[in-house]
């Protein structure tokens, strides 16, 4: 049985947008559907913070397995990794630590770019005309971009921007918007 399961997972890898079967967690309640469509047959419900296995992505849908059930949930309702509570507080406290302690000198290699920007190395950096000229030399003209899109089978679609949602802060997130742009 485990062998069959393993085979199934391996078989799924090349077909999916997810590189490998990974742990995920639901960010909110959702309906599990048989196919990636809002009109699909409902297989059941999955609760916020439920751990699921992520199998594939298609458009706005992610295929998940939980227990014996495999089905599709909304992509924006799930993410990789551990439940958000731990991860969020972990990130926030560690960010504070970084500010308090300053960057870890032992990890300079991995973070040179980011640290440099934050540490004010940017101020010391001199304006680099040569690099800027390189950057500007790569500019692509519109017809070239259109040809590139055509080669990739990309076809434009007319879509309006989405309005700002009514409730932009999520409960318990500590994320509160004050004013801001329209």
């Amino acid at each position, binding site marked *: 049985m485990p062998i069959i399961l393993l085979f199934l997972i391996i078989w799924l890898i090349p077909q999916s947008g997810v590189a490998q079967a990974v742990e995920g967690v639901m960010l909110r309640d959702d309906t599990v559907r048989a196919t990636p469509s*809002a009109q699909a047959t409902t297989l059941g419900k999955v609760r916020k913070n439920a751990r699921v296995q992520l199998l594939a992505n298609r458009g706005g849908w992610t295929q998940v397995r939980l227990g014996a059930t495999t089905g599709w949930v909304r992509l924006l309702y799930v993410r990789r990794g551990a439940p958000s509570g731990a*991860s969020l507080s972990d990130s926030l406290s560690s960010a504070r630590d970084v500010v308090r302690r300053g960057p870890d000198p032992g990890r300079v290699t991995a973070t040179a770019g*980011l640290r440099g920007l934050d540490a004010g190395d*940017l101020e010391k*950096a001199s304006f680099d005309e040569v690099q800027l000229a390189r950057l500007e030399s790569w500019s692509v003209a519109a017809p070239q*971009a259109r040809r590139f899109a055509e080669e990739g089978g990309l076809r434009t679609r007319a879509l309006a921007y989405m309005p700002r949602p009514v409730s932009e802060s999520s409960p318990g997130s500590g994320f509160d918007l004050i004013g801001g742009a329209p």
Partner: protein
Amino acid sequence: MRPSGSGSSLGWLMGVMLCVMSHHGFAMGTPPAKVEPKPTPPSENQAPKPDKTGNPLLSALLAGQLSEAQERQLGRRIVGNLLGAVPLVGDDALQGYVNRVGRWVALQSERPDLVWHFGVLDSEAINAFAAPGGYVLITRGLYRRLNSEAELAGVLAHEIAHVIRRHHVKLLQRSQIIAGLGGALVKEVGTGGDMAQHVIGHGAEVAARALDKETELEADRMALILAARAGYDAYGLPLVLQEIGHFSGQDDRVALLFKTHPHPDQRLQVLADTVGERLDGLAPGGTLPDRLYRLIE
């Protein structure tokens, strides 16, 4: 031991870094003389403005009347300084590829005719930037974690949104004043106009912080649409955010990003609120994982 093998991150942080960049390059401790060391050449498509600061660019910025040429001038200055700290990856094929994807997405925006420039920075930090006038940069650290061209398009679309909405120009107008880029300067400008005084009177720092979050969220929701207009899968950006969300803030490459931005989980939550069922009728777009240019390691 490869730094990229840590399994950390993804991140991305897009845009706000621009804020950091802007602060360092323009506001914090940088005297006005250094910001604009040379007389600004007259911009091509606008009449000279009254120059109360002795600096036409700064004057126009503070007055909120940057021409497109001045916007580009501002962007060049920011990006030129950034490139002095972090150079570009020396792979022309990669850079050309990123420019084709970026330009195609930018063509779907309200400013298709800007002279857009895209580049990959030689840094393991996980980040992306935009600067006024059509400059968009992504780090190698972020690029190497992308799984498809649609994800690249989503990340670039977020930055493109910052440019077309002039988020950084607006931020700079504010940060110039926060830093008091000289109270004298503000005084000079403020004698005739009440703009500077008006902004100061609103508690610039709080407003700027709130604006940071809102501009990020606005760029997020625009990015889905820009990518979809270009024919890509609309969900490239959220997939990158998903990936970032579970990385530990202990990872130096994302720690500062997490500090200065809404957490990716929150951004996903807001996107979920934004999208709802709106895109249910949208046919799946292209993801093009095989066309994604692979870095030469």
